């Protein structure tokens, strides 16, 4: 019975992230539009777009290889698995131990690897430019993430996200290192998801674009999979920040349905707040030049390193 319940909770989490991710994007677009005094599309619009894309025929470039056709499924699957391993409404779900925080980051790295390869498969200059820049951003953002992982795991004494969240709930205190890690993670999250000021998700045909350049040749169901993977990634980062730094309301896996329901409500609220803050941030910033991005990410890396050093130093005192 507990097995079935555990399996159910895990499946609910998987389906929940899948269902919420496009809605998060929809909310973000709506809020951004409202901030610019436009009406904006309804929140459900990304789901409508996805379903429309899924029903459409795919137009493949003449020299697309099998890798190009397999990549969307792999990218989607890896991001989905990573997103469903981050605690959303409850900690310690059935398979939460199968990958710790480092493995989740690395799974996103795998997805990036295949996305960048897919960008180069057709052999167009746009694809190459996107992949090249994605590789550069990734090679700075990933170490910054690892440094953040170091900081929080040094403090909590574990790399298991569920345990970290449980520790953070039990030991609510202000720490300078955690603050720095939070800022660093925000920087990484903005860069990894290609949001303003690093990349503009709303543009096409702009020389500074990154993500859109890589997926330029994709259409139909492949494009839908990549879009939903991008939405899942954004959701993952917001869940990660919420779970590590604001673990309020998280239910434990053996808590009853009532605690789970509260956790679910808290999670949706956190997502909405995260989306709202991102919308506010995006509308108040201009996009930066592509070669300024390494400085931006470098600041994240340095903050992460400082936080780690701080933990190392204070740990012994």
């Amino acid at each position, binding site marked *: 019975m507990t097995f079935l319940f555990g399996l159910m909770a895990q499946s609910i989490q998987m389906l929940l992230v899948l269902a919420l991710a496009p809605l998060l994007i929809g909310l973000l677009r709506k809020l951004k539009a409202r901030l610019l005094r436009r009406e904006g599309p309804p929140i459900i619009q990304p789901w409508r777009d996805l379903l429309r894309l899924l029903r459409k025929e795919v137009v*493949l*470039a003449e020299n697309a290889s099998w890798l190009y056709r397999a990549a969307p499924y792999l990218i989607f*699957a890896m991001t989905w*698995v990573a997103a469903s391993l981050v605690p959303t409404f409850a900690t310690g779900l059935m398979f939460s131990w199968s990958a710790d925080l480092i493995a989740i980051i690395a799974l996103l790295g*795998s997805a990036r690897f295949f996305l*960048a390869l897919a960008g180069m498969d057709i*052999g167009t200059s746009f694809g190459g*430019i996107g992949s090249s820049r994605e590789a550069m951003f990734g090679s700075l953002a990933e170490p910054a993430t690892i440094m953040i992982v*170091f900081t929080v795991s040094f403090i909590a004494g574990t790399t298991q996200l569920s345990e970290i969240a449980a520790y953070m709930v039990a030991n609510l205190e202000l720490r300078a290192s955690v603050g720095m890690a939070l800022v660093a993670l925000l920087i990484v999250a903005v860069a990894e998801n290609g949001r303003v000021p690093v990349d503009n998700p709303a543009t096409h045909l702009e020389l500074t674009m990154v993500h859109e350049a890589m997926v330029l040749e994709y259409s139909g169901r492949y494009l839908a999979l990549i879009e939903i993977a991008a939405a899942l990634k954004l959701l993952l980062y917001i869940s990660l920040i919420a779970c590590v730094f604001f673990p309020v309301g998280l239910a434990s896996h053996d808590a009853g349905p009532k605690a789970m329901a509260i956790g679910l409500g808290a999670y949706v609220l956190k997502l909405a707040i995260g989306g709202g803050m991102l919308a506010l941030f995006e509308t108040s910033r201009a996009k930066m030049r592509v*070669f300024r991005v390494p400085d931006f990410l470098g600041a994240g890396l340095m903050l992460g390193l400082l936080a780690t050093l701080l933990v190392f130093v204070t740990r012994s005192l």
Partner: protein
Amino acid sequence: MPLYLALTCVSALLAVSVYAIVDRQNRAISRNVYRLCLGLCGALFLAAVMPRGAHVVSAALPLGLPWIGMHFRIDVLSAFFLAVVNLGGAAASAYAIGYGAHEKEPMRVLPFYAAFIAGMNAVVLADDAFTFLVAWEFMSLASWALVLTHHHEEENRHAGFVYLLMASFGGFALLMAFGVLGGVGGAYDFATIRESTKEGWKTGLVLALALVGMGSKAGLAPLHIWLPLAHPAAPSHVSALMSGVMTKVAVYGFIRVVFDLLGPPAFWWSIEPMSFGAASALVGVLFATIQSDLKKLLAYSTIENIGVIFIALGLALAFKANGMALPAALAFTAALFHVFNHSLFKSLLFFGAGAVLHGSGERSIERLGGLIHSMPKTAFLFLGGCVAIAALPPLNGFASEWLVFQAILLSPALPQWTIKLLVPAVGVALALSAALGAGCYIRAYGVAFLGRPRSEAARAAHDPDRWSLGTMAVLLTLCLIAGLLPSLLIDTISPVARDFVGDRMPTQAELSWLSIAPIAESRSSYNGLLVFVFILFSAYSARWVIHRFGSARSRRGPAWDCGYIVRSPTTQYTGSSFAQPIRRTLGVMAFSVRERLDMPAPGDMRPARLTVEIKDRIYDYLYAPLTRAVASCATGLNVLSLLTIQQYLSLVFAALVFLLILVAI
């Protein structure tokens, strides 16, 4: 029994190399030699894994120096490295049964090939300093001869020269190291050295000399400059052996001296391996990212991986010195696991590069492209190797790097301030090199295998023979198994950790669902198999749902590319343009890059030209002054060759008196 089997096989390998010379007229000689090597490596692998009854098996043979003899021994460490060496050796031989047939001058490869494998095995089996050094030099010289296989090319002759210099330098450092270890009494067998007491200054000196000697062979920065020249110069299966296996023999030597012979470590021993390891990891990956020669790129990436291994070994030393046996076991296991993994995927990638070289005749990725269409099988296998080496789950490279990260996460408990400040810096270097490594292989694979062919050779390329493909497939399968079931490997390595750092990781096979948890499940755990199953399940269910309820139709058309219609393959991103952002942002750390744009004035008809000049700082600031100093010394000493007989006699007399005074003091 295993030791005698191993020694017989080593002698048989030497006999094979004689056979290769004697029977050189035979048409099938190449295939015969590689088949024999495959069989002997297989037998040696069996000798390594067969149960040994006693924990340690040793033997002394009345060979070599009369009053010393030659001592051989198999313990858990040598058995592990014996397995790694011969797995790599067997793979290279199997690959070469097909690939070796294309060699134009087989006589420049075959005798040295068998001797090279024999030398590597002998190093691992040696149990006294004399045997070790003889085997070491044998291995160096045999591999040097293999580097000079294609000696008609100027570049390769230069590579051979630099390699010979660095190998003699490293061998000299090792000679000194064992000299200091053995002492004036000349007790050179490892058992005596192990028992003897070492004074403080001696351990420091031996540690430095061992790091120089073994590090120069392993390719530790800044002693790495020969490696990217020499490894690619040899035929591809030999490159795989040199990069995948010989560097591991050097790691074995380092472990043998520092973890075994030198006795209990002090905490400062860890500083050198960690800092040089971190430097190697960064230098290696940054240079790999800007290479356009596929084999050179792989060689630089070897330097990176050796750096990772040395970082883990340094951590193990630090933990061991502080009496933290369990974390030490974790770091040590991570190092050995990465040794095993790297030997697998580096061999696989070099075989792939060999297949590309044979299939298209090109080594530069700038003239390749679209190989996924012309060499589909190689492309698939090479992709697997790239995913593995880029440390991406669920393959094996990630499993071992994950263990290294877990070891770093245990380091705040170390009491020394030096290490406390060093470890986070090393952690950043490790994280950076892992991330850059992924970028580097995106570039290598994307430019060489994806896109459209940039030359006729790339369009007309073809897959290699069945032996080559089969070997690569076996290696990829091993990578997958090691990645999905890392617990198997960890439990195999555990006895080595128990003997050399005093503890072992908890038995992983007992954990549920075959996951791994280095310390405790509440602390960290990873289950490659489950993650892999989840990914496959999600991908297939998504595919099924979409095909069932959405659309499964597709049609081919010209690429969109924002309406740009010039279809020349030169419009693609090249390798150097791909590396440009990284060159520009991170390049200043490792190399000085100067970009010069020569833009003709309007009306001027000459083409605009962008020249990029990349200089190796290590070469400019370390080796170039050294070369100049040696050259000027040599010129200065030239005077001595033009003396008269009286002057010579007085010089000899003065030297004699000087030495006698030195001895008297």
